[in-house]
């Protein structure tokens, strides 16, 4: 797939997968926000969201100590033992072996960003080596970034080949492909990039909205465009790809809206941490706060929740 011109490649891909209308998408997702989730259904949704969380720390100042705190929170989000553990901890490659120590065998998986996260701007061989290194250190999942420069200049073949290369580098680890939707800008491009990625992914791999390192991260709109792409790809090819919105989802209310979108677009088979994840940090305590609210009828002060960053 060597395009004659970037424009031609873009036009061909769009022609194949169909266009997206911005106004219509926004209208559709506005309906999710009007759903009213109460009582038992709310508790179910909140617990599901906890179990789907990729609890994340991606900071220059991360240390093994910080990773231990994160992992302990991941294993036991709340004093209430009926609250499930989260899906995974998501860390930088150098922290994978530290995370491994705390969560191995617990069911909480270790995810590592790789491929020169968040910009991806280094040599391809370096990016591949980083992914391999993370897997060698024990990462169960790798979160890569796509080559947005190549995508925006129309070199789709390169974008796809690089993803395929990382798939191979992952071996048995699952791969999550970060599109960085705010840099792709249009819903048409988000849909196109989703298909480019899915065509070389394996069942059980994911596509993911954002790194969380740009101004605009996951939105219900970008989530919708991506899960519709996943649905179309599944219905066409029978291959089920997972989805991970990341960044900007801070409240339980938002998380429930995302889950409603999943329920009404992809159906019950995607309401599982195997196929849907939230990349988030502060979301977890808000989910717990709402769960406690449902249990006790009152909101608890932040200091009742471990690792709460809010002051009181």
């Amino acid at each position, binding site marked *: 797939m060597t395009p004659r011109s970037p424009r031609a490649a873009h036009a061909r891909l769009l022609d194949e997968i169909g266009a997206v209308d911005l106004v219509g998408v926004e209208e559709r997702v506005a309906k999710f926000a009007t759903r009213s989730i109460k009582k038992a259904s709310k508790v179910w949704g909140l617990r599901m969201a906890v179990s789907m969380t990729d609890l994340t720390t991606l900071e220059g100042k991360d240390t093994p100590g910080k990773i231990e705190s994160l992992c302990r929170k991941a294993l036991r989000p709340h004093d209430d033992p009926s609250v499930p553990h989260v899906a995974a901890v998501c860390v930088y490659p150098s922290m994978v072996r530290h995370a491994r120590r705390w969560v191995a065998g617990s069911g909480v998986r270790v995810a590592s960003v790789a491929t020169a996260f968040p910009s991806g701007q280094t040599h391809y061989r370096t990016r591949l080596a980083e992914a391999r290194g993370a897997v060698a250190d024990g990462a169960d999942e790798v979160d890569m970034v796509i080559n947005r420069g190549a995508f925006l200049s129309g070199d789709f073949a390169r974008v796809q080949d690089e993803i395929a290369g990382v798939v191979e580098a992952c071996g048995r680890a699952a791969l999550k492909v970060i599109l960085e939707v705010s840099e792709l800008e249009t819903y048409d491009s988000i849909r196109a990039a989703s298909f480019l990625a899915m065509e070389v992914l394996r069942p*059980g791999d994911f596509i993911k909205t954002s790194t969380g390192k740009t101004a605009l991260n996951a939105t219900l709109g970008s989530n919708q465009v991506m899960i519709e792409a996943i649905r179309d790809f599944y*219905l066409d090819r*029978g291959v089920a790809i997972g989805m991970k919105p990341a960044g900007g989802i801070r409240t339980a209310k938002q998380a429930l809206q995302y*889950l409603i979108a999943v329920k009404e677009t*992809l159906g019950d088979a995607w*309401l599982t941490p195997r196929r849907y994840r939230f990349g988030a940090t502060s979301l977890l305590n808000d989910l717990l706060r709402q769960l406690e609210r449902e249990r006790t009828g009152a909101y608890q002060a932040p200091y009742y929740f471990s690792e709460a960053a809010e002051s009181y």
Partner: protein
Amino acid sequence: MPARRRATARPRAALIFGDLWEFDPAPETADPRLKPRYELFIGGSFVRPRSGRYFDSINPANERRLAEIALAGPADVDAAYQAAARAFRPWAATPGRERGKYLFRIARLLQDRAREFAVAETMDGGKPIRESRDFDVPMAAAHFFYHAGWADKLDYVVPGRSVAPLGVVGQVIPWNFPLLMLAWKIAPALAMGNCVVLKPAETTSITALKLAEILQDAGLPPGVVNFVTGAGETGALVMGHPAASKVAFTGSTEVGKAIMRQLAGTDRKMTMELGGKAANIVFDDAPIDQAVEGIVNGIFFNQGHVCCAGSRLLVHEPVADRVISRLRNRIRVLRVGDPLDKNTDLGAINSGAQLAKIRRLVASGVREGASLFQPPCRLPARGFYYPPTLFTGVTQSHRIAREEIFGPVLSILTFRTVDEAIEKANNTPYGLSAGVWTDKGSRILRMSTELKAGVVWANTFNRFDPSSPFGGYKESGFGREGGRQGLLDYVRLAGGGEP
């Protein structure tokens, strides 16, 4: 861990929309503050009908009685017209900016009581609370605001000419958007200095009579607006009264024709907003998911009780299968049931009679060989409900492609070329609205000129705004409501000549 890719035993991938995550009931609990009995609103106060008769208004969601409504006879309608005629001179002489203040006040009072009105509207008519809360009530308030803004700018309605009110206007409105249609009718009439005698539909009189309370609170001079309630006979009295300078009717084409026969030969001005059988046209380059959403909005909004509903889907043959399969998946997640539940997408059918009509027409579709699709859904045991329904394999000759069903039933036809789409879209006695879905701008412009419909929506459907005129072609009626054009139907140009 990604599973090894292997050939699945399942022949085709399918989505599961099951009960893994059921939603608990989420009823809207605001008090609608209903009275057990509603009198007529004549001359600024609630009066007992001289007929002495009352009829029941029931909640179509559970068939329980909500209130008793006064039945207006000839003497009552006469009294209403007399009150309006008495009020007319001082009202017309009131400066426009003062009239505007009343309209602003009505709009704000309606906003203040928005939840209460939304619940009342839903209980009386059966529409989902999501729609009455997010559409009907705010839109009704928006119409009062919009026309309040016009009231002091009458010198600019027709540049270079001045306008004068007509007198007393008789208005009859339908049951599908009781409060909103009332706002469409009375806001422009009042802004222009007319007085009103209005009859709501017999199944949905309550929000009009609740609005009468707001008119009182707003201090609107007595007689400027009068509400008489009742069924068809009362409507005929309102439309036929000799004191009316103009009549405005929204409802079925059949009744519209009867009114026009009744008034033929008189100098009565008329506005008719009648039935429709709108074509919603999807081309192969359309954004499919958003088109599907537009199709759903087009036909399932308000259970399809919408005169401009996109009840005929014309889909380009190359994408027909894709559109239909996505549409099926989409309607599987529509929630049908208790209209007061905040998660309900399709509420109750307005009346038993309407439900019977829908069933009759659906049966004719099946009999004539079209294939029917209804998603599995549990309908409440009591009340009038109908599941969202798709008919494929429909042709122009099927009854379900020609007659207005006024329910959640979509007839799907296909076409091959642009010309064929236009021809099929226009092959109907109606011409109220149409929708076009395409990525190609020039095609939208061409379609909007060639489709004989009062409103043509491009890449959207069922969008309304007080500043946008609404009305029909052919047997969908004449006259416009909303915008500057809508004002012209409530004035005469000073110095003679029709606008």
